[in-house]
């Protein structure tokens, strides 16, 4: 029977059916659910690694060790893992290895809009691109066969609308070929210059062989419609948009984005009139077609380099009609994401904002501290950059700078790549203050365990790495632990540590309020008689507090009684949840 599955769940099912035995990943929207769903299959060993580089290296080791292996990451995670990526291309595999990378056109939950197809081309690794859940499952299985056939890892590229869309899939049985033997083969697995020089020609030959395979394998599909005046070349979810908008169009649907076919494209171009390439982000297919000397009558000039496409965007770009729509006719205030009611990060950002310090930010829920009314962050670049970036900032600006600046980083992000920045501060005698926002979980991606939480991806108990001991071990003398709900105490601790002419780590510790098992207090109420309409409680940016009829009001369905607003109010107007 067919099942409705997320693209990510379908990839996980593909792993199961393909006999995958080893998974190591780091969470990242929109890739996270692949690993969570795969972890539910007992046959697959599944783990969260501290970062994508470690995950990929573990998967390489498992492949060499004879197990079909897998790792998943978001597009920016592939940058973290780019070092092993470019060399596993040379070593190739023993058992099949598949790397899933999920792009985020439109940046629903990302800091950039990179097109990961560039990584496939640059690293000379085949890349498959499914366009719905059924293909997610099918292509995952195919990727393992290709991996072993061509002695290469295979990249599986999804995007938000494939990863997070549900569609029907047909399930099959698992086929497990068992653990393959390991045979020592330094010429293949020890990539020192003398060996790598001999592997490089193999890599080039392999990609040509993969291209030859892709010409006729059916992974790239020609659908000639009634209308052949225009032919479209497209891939991934863009195929679905195009097919919906133009049911009779002639389409070459690319399933293998790297290497791209040559003969197939030439044949298709010869059968149609004009040729239009429909792809999101960068002109990868378009440039390939142009380089073949084939005329492209429309591509990025029509569709642009930015964001997601859709059926109507494609139709409009082609000058075709789209359905009529009703407009609301006045400005609808945007609803940006916010720190949740009771979020342990809120008080810290209020305090930092009040202190007027430079805040070097990082990637996680706490990036939302950049938004009004908290406006706390000065920078956010990538995972781990809060600490290393602050060191550079303070070194550039001199000793006084360290007394007016902090880095903020979550527990999971600290384990991912914050610790190396801290090592750099100690080693190079910096004086920066780092605040680790320890909410006992990887929050933004939807609550994944990490090396500090005491549980693993399978939900079983695991050793919990102590943040304070880790920081002390690298040489931080001032390690303080504080409860972010106690605002005055936290403020005092931050001020004390900023004053010191040596590095400090403040661990702001309180679990994410959304975690199961976290007890919250009853909702607070505002005594309208006592409320002087000073709006101070509004400055913490709690979504449960609004201002109605010139008085503050608390939404009882949102409030979790964290008491932050109680600490803000000078008139004792907030309370009502005392036990």
């Amino acid at each position, binding site marked *: 029977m067919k099942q409705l599955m997320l693209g990510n769940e379908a990839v996980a099912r593909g792993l199961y059916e393909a006999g995958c035995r080893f998974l190591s990943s780091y969470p990242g929207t929109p890739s996270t659910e692949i690993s969570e769903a795969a972890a539910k299959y007992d046959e697959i060993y599944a783990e969260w690694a501290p970062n994508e580089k470690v995950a990929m290296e573990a998967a390489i080791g498992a492949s060499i060790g004879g197990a079909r292996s897998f790792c998943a990451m978001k597009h920016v995670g592939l940058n973290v893992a780019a070092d092993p990526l470019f060399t596993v291309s040379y070593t190739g595999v023993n058992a099949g290895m598949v790397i899933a990378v999920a792009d985020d056109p439109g940046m629903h939950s990302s800091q950039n809009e990179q097109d990961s197809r560039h990584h496939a081309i640059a690293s000379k690794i085949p890349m498959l691109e499914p366009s719905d859940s059924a293909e997610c499952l099918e292509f995952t299985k195919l990727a393992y066969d290709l991996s072993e056939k061509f002695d290469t890892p295979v990249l599986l590229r999804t995007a938000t609308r494939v990863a997070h869309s549900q569609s029907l899939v047909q399930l099959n049985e698992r086929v497990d070929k068992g653990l393959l033997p390991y045979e020592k083969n330094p010429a293949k697995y020890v990539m020192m210059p003398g060996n790598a020089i001999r592997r490089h020609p193999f890599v080039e030959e392999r990609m040509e062989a993969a291209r030859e395979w892709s010409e006729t394998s059916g992974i790239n599909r020609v659908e000639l419609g009634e209308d052949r005046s225009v032919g479209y070349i497209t891939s991934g979810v863009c195929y679905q*948009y195009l097919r919906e908008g133009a049911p009779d169009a002639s389409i070459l649907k690319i399933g293998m984005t790297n290497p791209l076919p040559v003969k197939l494209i030439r044949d298709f171009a010869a059968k149609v009139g004009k040729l239009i390439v429909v792809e999101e982000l960068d002109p990868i297919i378009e440039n390939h077609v142009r380089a073949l000397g084939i005329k492209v009558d429309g591509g990025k000039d029509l569709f642009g380099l930015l964001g997601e496409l859709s059926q109507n965007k494609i139709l409009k770009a082609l000058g075709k009609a789209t359905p009529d729509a009703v407009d609301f006719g006045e400005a609808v205030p945007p609803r940006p994401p916010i720190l949740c009611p009771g979020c342990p990060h809120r008080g810290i950002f209020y305090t930092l904002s009040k202190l007027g310090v430079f805040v070097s930010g990082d990637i996680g829920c706490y990036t939302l501290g950049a938004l009004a009314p908290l406006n706390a962050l000065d920078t956010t670049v990538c995972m781990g950059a809060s600490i290393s970036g602050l060191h550079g900032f303070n070194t550039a600006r001199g000793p006084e700078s360290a007394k007016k600046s902090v880095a903020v980083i979550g527990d999971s992000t600290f384990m991912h790549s914050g610790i190396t920045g801290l090592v750099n501060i100690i080693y190079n005698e910096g004086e920066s203050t780092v605040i680790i926002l320890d909410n006992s979980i990887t929050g933004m991606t*939807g609550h994944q365990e990490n090396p500090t939480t005491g549980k693993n991806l399978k939900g079983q108990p695991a050793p919990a790495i102590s943040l304070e001991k880790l920081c002390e071990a690298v040489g931080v003398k001032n390690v303080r632990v504080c409860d972010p709900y106690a605002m005055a105490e936290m403020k005092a601790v931050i001020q004390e540590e900023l004053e010191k002419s040596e590095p400090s780590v403040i661990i702001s510790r309180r679990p994410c309020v959304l975690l199961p098992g976290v007890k919250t207090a009853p909702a607070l109420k505002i005594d309208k008689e006592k409320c002087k309409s000073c709006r101070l409680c509004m400055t913490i940016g709690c979504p449960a507090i609004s201002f109605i009829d010139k008085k503050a009001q608390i939404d009882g369905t949102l409030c979790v009684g964290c008491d932050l607003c109680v600490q803000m109010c000078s008139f004792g107007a907030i309370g009502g949840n005392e036990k």
Partner: protein
Amino acid sequence: MTDTKSIMIVGVGGQGTLLASRILGYVLMEAGFDVKMSEVHGMSQRGGSVVTYVKFGERVFSPIVDQGEADYILAFERLEAARALSCLKTDGTLIMNDRAISPMPVITGAMKYPDEIAEKLRGKGVDLIACDALAMAQESGNAKSVNVVLIGVLSALMDFSNDAWQRALVACVKPKFLELNKKAFALGREYAAANLKA
């Protein structure tokens, strides 16, 4: 494809739009349709606007609902109804939980929450069903059941049997909360049935 039907479920992150779409998806799949649903996870779920697209028909291609394409919009909040309006077919139906949750730009005073949204929507000729899903959810015993109340309202407008919806509830809702959600669903379904007759 002309036979493809499109539904949008819009709300505020944390309101339970995903469960609503899963119940709907189950009914559609069981009825033998090709189904696609698109969700947004991650950052948007933290109190921001959230949108789920549900599409069904003989063969569905695009997983998203674009401007002027939605047969039904199920809005969990007024402002989100106004935001999603441009996606409604000119003869589509908008079901709205008649309740306001202020977004941060309104809370900080940078922008004003539009007033009389229901009246304005009707003024534009929108086929609107505005209901107090929160009151019905509270009546069912849990304020968080707004999602299932609204699915109940939608169910009355669609051609699937009550049994089919009940099976979907059993499949999608945790057993611990099943009875409560069945009650919430029934309240929404009865409300719509009464409202449609009137």
